[in-house]
């Protein structure tokens, strides 16, 4: 009875990183970082340029190997997962990418279904429905027949987001995924992510440069600097002028906006 109650209290970690060292020969980018992510969290990954944010995301998604430590995704070491299994657990929206071949946007979104598809039986009605839903959520339906090579950077990022949503994974990693969008689109995308996070328990980990955007949507912040975690806590606890000053080496004012109840940051010149 007691054990049952306590096991209910300990939520299953969807990502567990332990003493992760990662980098290139002769230079470590991540220097022994550890953290856990539980199901349904909305985490912002912040830090100055070169602090290792992108490297961390690429390691988590199994694209680059690491030097030592452990990375587990849903209780399994990342390196033991088969490629398609990994892509069924985790989708990634990367920094702006150039697609060289003129695929229609809808076809690019359809590629998100790849990890779920069997080689000989492709594109059934369920796939079509999921693709449609993903395009609806990202407001990309109007782009479906346009060529991916002929749309703007912000539009391409939305198509990328739709592709990741079509992957239907429990974990979503974003690396500056809204950097080329205008503020209206940024908010729109994050509102959708917020809804998915709340209603479907989607775990979101997002690299962001915009601290104020992070403060609006992320419930937990991880601050990285020079390959180390400087702070890892609830957003309100991390968003203090002392902590941010330590990370960014800049004078910072932190205000609480009465209307939203969220903290916002002003950097001083």
């Amino acid at each position, binding site marked *: 009875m007691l054990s049952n109650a306590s096991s209910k209290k300990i939520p299953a970690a969807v990502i567990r990183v332990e003493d992760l060292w990662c980098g290139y020969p002769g230079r470590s980018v991540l220097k022994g970082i550890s953290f856990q992510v539980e199901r349904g969290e909305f985490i912002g990954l912040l830090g100055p340029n070169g602090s290792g944010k992108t490297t961390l995301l690429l390691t988590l998604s199994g*694209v680059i190997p690491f030097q030592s430590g452990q990375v587990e995704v849903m209780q399994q070491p990342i390196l033991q997962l088969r490629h398609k299994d990994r*892509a069924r657990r985790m*989708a990634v929206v990367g920094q702006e990418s150039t*697609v*060289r071949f*003129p695929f*229609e946007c809808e*076809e690019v979104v359809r*590629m998100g279904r790849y990890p779920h598809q069997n080689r000989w039986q492709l594109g059934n009605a369920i796939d079509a429905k999921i693709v449609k839903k993903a395009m609806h959520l990202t407001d990309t339906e109007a782009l479906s027949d346009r060529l991916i090579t002929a749309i703007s950077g912000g539009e391409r990022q939305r198509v990328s987001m739709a592709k990741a949503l079509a992957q239907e994974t429990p974990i979503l990693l974003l690396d500056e995924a809204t950097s080329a969008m205008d503020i209206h689109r940024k908010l729109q995308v994050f509102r959708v992510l917020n809804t998915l996070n709340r209603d479907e328990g989607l775990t979101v980990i997002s690299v962001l440069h915009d601290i104020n955007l992070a403060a609006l949507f992320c419930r937990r912040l991880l601050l990285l600097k020079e390959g180390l975690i400087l702070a890892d806590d609830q957003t309100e606890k991390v968003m203090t002028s002392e902590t941010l000053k330590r990370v960014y080496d800049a004078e910072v004012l932190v205000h609480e906006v009465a209307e939203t109840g969220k903290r916002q940051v002003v950097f001083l010149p």
Partner: protein
Amino acid sequence: MKSEIRNAGNRWRADRTAQKSHWLSVSNFRLCCTVGFFYWLAALVVIGLTAFLTSGIGSFETPYRIIWRLWLSPFHPSWAEGIDETVRYIVINVRLARICLALTVGGALALAGAVYQGVLLNPLADPFTLGVSTGAAFGASLYILFGWGGGHLLGMSTLPIAAFVGALAALYLVYLLGRVDGRIHTTTLVLAGIIVSTFLSAWIGVLKSLNEDSVSTIVFWVMGSLSGKSWGHVLLVLPYLAAGGAMIIYYARELDLLTLGDVQAQQLGVNVQQIRFRLMLAASLVTAVAVAVSGVIGFVGLVVPHLVRLALGPHHRRLLPAVFLVGALLLLLSDTLARSFLPNGQELPVGVVTAILGGPFFCYLMLHRKKYLQL
């Protein structure tokens, strides 16, 4: 009461339109399939017709009513009754064999080009610009120089294997040369390919002068020719082409995903390293076997994938079969020109013809479609 009737009427109309649009969408789908099937059928008919027409071209004049009967004679010998044996031999064993070889070689080269362009994300990649063709020719001529050219293994000629080894060695060399700071650049890779290609061409010349008799004319290896080929050569190509082609078609969907770049393909669940390696192997095998029977024929692998991509879009499931067919047709036409353009039975190397046909098209791409080529 009135409004109720109106509502019922509206509902009925709504049902009708729903049914109608449903019915329409299903029929649209069927129509698309039928149209798609029709296009493939039309392509095959065009190729068959071209093959039929070109089998009547040559220094030995043969009327088409005889050729028609000869084409049917393998199905029933009675069709060939009363036709001179020499005529039968020329049409079936000389011309038709050469036509079939042109079709397979052209298809193989174009297919390999499409794979190289997709895997390397390089619009300038093809068997020739990557040095693979010349590598294969060098491997094959070295093999012949050592006197192993007639070797057989399990009933299949081993010459394509020697060409394959040469192709892989050249590709590896180009890959090493073309890397700058661990990354492959579009232009450096092609530059490396041209250098390796030129270097190996020179060595083929050396091999040729070492032994005039065994290594056939240098023009054959460097410019390509299908002259004097028989059904034996077609049978030699087919098993290797089938193996390589099957591998390529098997990974058609992965080729689509690879065009998004390594990182994205990996994150979508593609085993990038393994599949790229296998695709490069398959494309090199297909190239090698084509080169082993026809020498180095340029431009087919470069131009045809671009041409088809402009028409059909980049989806590899559709692109690859179409590229094979168009490549086959293009080389058949080029070879027909090569063997009939000059008087008195003289021949042009077929590589000359493909370059003359392909060059202007590529110039057009460079001048007007720079954005498409992304140079």
